[in-house]
């Protein structure tokens, strides 16, 4: 098995085009994205590139289910948030607010629509019927990857929207949103992990790399999608909660410390006394 085969031309072209578009747009609009945003955008492209071509792609073609699941998770859970973090609002506005796009953008960034679209695409993609088609037909495969990226961006929009016109959810709703996301993710990951048979015929048909049996591979891949994804989401949730607590404390400083409280570290002096 060759880990560094040829680069997939579609991926190289796509990534390059996205990068070119980003810097062209910045140049055209005469503004410079913040350094953090550029870094995020470059990271997004880098992760996308590594997910779609190179060793991971080779392993996936060599019928390693786990590699394929890792690829899907990168495309849906890592690339989209990085993309959104990398896009400044002024760069999006001319496109998103243009006459044909605006109503569509307003509809597809609605949390419920975004959530359901993502859940539908993600569930369908892992149904044996479509999954097998995806493995056998490169065009279907590319289509699904593009769908993952687009619905992924939609999914993350309510959490990371850069534009006030299509705003983020409030923090508690963001947490509920993440919580509900566990339902489709578990519904996809758990049955694959628990199944005693090879779910996708594609993996039973050919040789498997490194002498892993298809069923072991399937359990590992299923777990990656179910538990790995869950742990990732917990990290996201932690970040959201932290932002929430800080935000509320900053906007309305809590006045919970009072003179009547016992203080143990050092006596606190009243200001102005």
């Amino acid at each position: 098995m060759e880990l560094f085969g040829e680069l997939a031309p579609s991926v190289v072209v796509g990534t390059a085009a996205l990068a070119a578009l980003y810097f062209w747009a910045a140049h055209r609009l005469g503004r410079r994205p913040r350094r953090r945003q550029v870094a995020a955008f470059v990271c997004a492209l880098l992760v996308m590139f590594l997910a779609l071509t190179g060793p991971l792609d080779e392993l996936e073609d060599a019928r390693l289910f786990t590699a394929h699941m890792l690829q899907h998770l990168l495309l849906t859970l890592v690339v989209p948030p990085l993309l959104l973090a990398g896009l400044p609002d002024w760069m999006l506005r001319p496109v998103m607010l243009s006459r044909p796009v605006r109503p569509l953008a307003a509809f597809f960034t609605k949390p419920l629509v975004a959530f359901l679209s993502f859940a539908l695409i993600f569930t369908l993609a892992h149904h044996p019927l479509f999954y097998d088609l995806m493995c056998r037909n490169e065009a279907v495969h590319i289509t699904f990857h593009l769908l993952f990226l687009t619905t992924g961006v939609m999914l993350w929009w309510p959490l990371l929207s850069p534009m006030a016109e299509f705003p983020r959810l409030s923090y508690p709703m963001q947490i509920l949103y993440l919580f509900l996301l566990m339902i489709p993710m578990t519904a996809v990951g758990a049955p694959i992990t628990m199944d005693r048979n090879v779910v996708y015929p594609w993996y039973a048909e050919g040789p498997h790399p490194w002498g892993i049996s298809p069923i072991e591979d399937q359990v590992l891949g299923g777990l990656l999608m179910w538990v790995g994804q869950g742990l990732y989401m917990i990290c996201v949730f932690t970040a959201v909660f932290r932002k929430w607590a800080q935000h509320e404390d900053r906007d309305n400083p809590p006045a919970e410390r009072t003179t009547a409280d016992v203080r143990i570290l050092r006596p606190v002096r009243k200001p102005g006394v």
Partner: protein
Amino acid sequence: MAAQPKPLPVEGPHYLEGGGILGWLTTVDHKRVAVLYGVTALLLMLVGGTEAMLIRTQLMRPDNHVLTAAWYNQIFTMHGTTMIFLVIMPLETGFFANFLIPLQIGARDVAFPRINALSYWLFLAGAVFMHLGLVTHVLNLGTVPSGLPNAGWFGYANLTESQYSPGLNIDFWDIGLLILGVSSVLAALNFFVTIVNMRAPGMTFMRMPMFMWAILVTTILILLAFPALTVGLIFLFLDRFFGTHFYRVTAGATPILWQHLFWIFGHPEVYIMALPAFGMISEILPVFSRKPLFGYPMMAYSLVLIAFLSYGVWGHHMFATGMGPIADATFAITSMLIAIPTGIKVFSWIATVWGGRLRFTTAMLFALAFIIEFTIGGLSGIMHASAPIDLQQTDSYFVVAHFHYVLGGGVLFAILGAFYYWCPKISGRMLDETLGKWQFWLLVIGFNLTFFPMHWLGTWGMPRRIYTYAPGMGWSTLNFVETIGAYIQAVSFIVFFANILLTLRRGEKAAADPWDGRTLEWSVASPPPAYNFAVLPEGGSRDDFWVQKYGTLAGAHGGGSSAAGATAAAHAAAEAAEHIHMPAPSLYPLLFALGVFLMGVGALAWLRIVILGGMVVALSIIAMAFEYPAHGEEAAESEPVFYRGVDNRKAGMWAFLGSECVFFTALISTYMVYKSRNLAGPDAQILNIPLTSFSTFILLMSSLLMVLALAAFRRGDDKWGRIWLLGTAGFGCIFLGGQVYEFTDFYLQGLYMQTNIFGQTFYTLVGTHGFHVFIGVCWLVTLAIAGFLGKIDSKRSLAVEIAGLYWHFVDVVWIVIFTLVYLMRTVKHA
């Protein structure tokens, strides 16, 4: 500058006064409903405790025969079921949370007062129903043997199948739990909306009392966990009453379907019981330490994190089923992760107490003991999380020790602490501290004497759920010691009940703020007036009442209860009784629950009673819907209550639909797992795709009509609104007609529910969805009739909007079902 505590002196009737028996039966006041819950749950605690004493007496000596094996099975099953579903949950959510939510967040009542009453009456109906087996057994009614449920509190199928449990025992358990599930979900929905929507204006989430945080997270857990249990119970019901094979391995069913469904519910259930206890402790410790709660944001964070994790750990109850090493390892890791948020809590509690000015009241003693006992239970929990160790401990007394430390030493201690802490507020009288301390020390000694030796017994191999054991096993001494411990606990509880009775008779009258409390419930009189707050509080800081009393370090007063404010409030209180409009009492919740009870009884006795019960239920729903003229109105004109964001009813519908998502996910997952397990007979190839595509199209179009109907009502075009509504209902009827045709067709082709695995899962899934459509059609027709009577105008379009939410949801579910069941019907034979 520390102002003296200045609780508002509110003269006038408090919530317990007046009304008579009928007043209690029709009450919708959250405080009265809470008291009903509390009294019922305390009585059931006596029942569950007596069962525990019977168990311990039987196990006192080897070869003992106080109970027969059959009775022992019933007693330990009911001990577990009673303590979990009928004592701990109702005491925490039904009693304390119900009483305290509006008082702590500064509201006058819960979001849906009648649903609150309904939850209680359903709870009572379920509790009574569970115990009916005893009546039928004693009176020797019926032709089938019966008795109390006897398959353990987690009632593993296929042990509960009629083949192995032929008596009515399991039927009482199954239907009783279904009723209790409805009650819990309704209560959770109610409390969720109340906390989210009705907090005082200044009370952001990060300023809520920690108990409110705990209850908020608990309600979400209930909403998203109970549907899985409901699905499992419905399958069991179908198996036992209609001869399906959901749990019958000989017909191809998987032997662990029940375990998956039960523990997906069951592990969150552990936190449904534990989180409110965490909340109670987090209220008691700061008050008696005279310090704010340490690490408030982290405390809230860890609550939510526990909720997150609790859905990913159910497999640790199933290590012994042989899920395979990788799944075991995963569940082991996720289970161990729970130690992190729990550890955060324990350390924060310790830090809260650290250096404080402690007052060792009984409540404080229970709270401190909670930390220790719960940590012991948590440590053995980490042991279970490791799959290889758990395989040694499964079904041994080690497990019994573990969950009694968590639920008894943990949760129950917290509940008792909460009794001593909040009883003054609830009853207006102080529980006796001397008796309380007697009770505390007796309980600590008795509890540890009973349950600590179980760790050893378990390691020495004593299995749980055996009704007796042989003399030479080396277990006799410790079992004797444990029973002595249990008797000491019994004495402790006698002291507790005596304390309550004495208090109610002639306890010391409680001031409004007897403990120098920190949260808003202490700012009103004890017991509170029916309307809770004469002037709704602002709630501008954490520990709002504390800030009101003592000001902040910066000198500013928090909530605006300065001297002038207090006078104004007193004035307002004088006029409050006349001006504050509280929800009117209603008899229908009671009737509704009665109908449900009749349906349960009818299912076991005489089918015609089911129809009678169903009619009572339907009539109560309709009566409730039209009881208030304001039905569906956007917001009453002079509503003094503060709402955030969306209307309560809409928020309630969203919460309900969230719960429904889990319900359908469980059903669909079962279908997906079962469709390839067919042994014989027709399978998914029988499905008629063209016909169903047509009805799918019709259903989608009906959603469009629904949108048009809402738009019409909103712009005040009643006529077209009614037309579109009827059109939606008509399309729904066409869909249902298609389904009736489809089912008849399959039936004629020989596919019955009982035929095979495919038949039962298909009919259950699609039929359940059809039932939802049917309910939707009834709803729409009712709305259309109301429209013809001129009761729906643009001001009341909310009623249409809520029905529309439901209708669209049902359509979306159908798209998923149509895709997964019909379009992807390829059958893979393993």
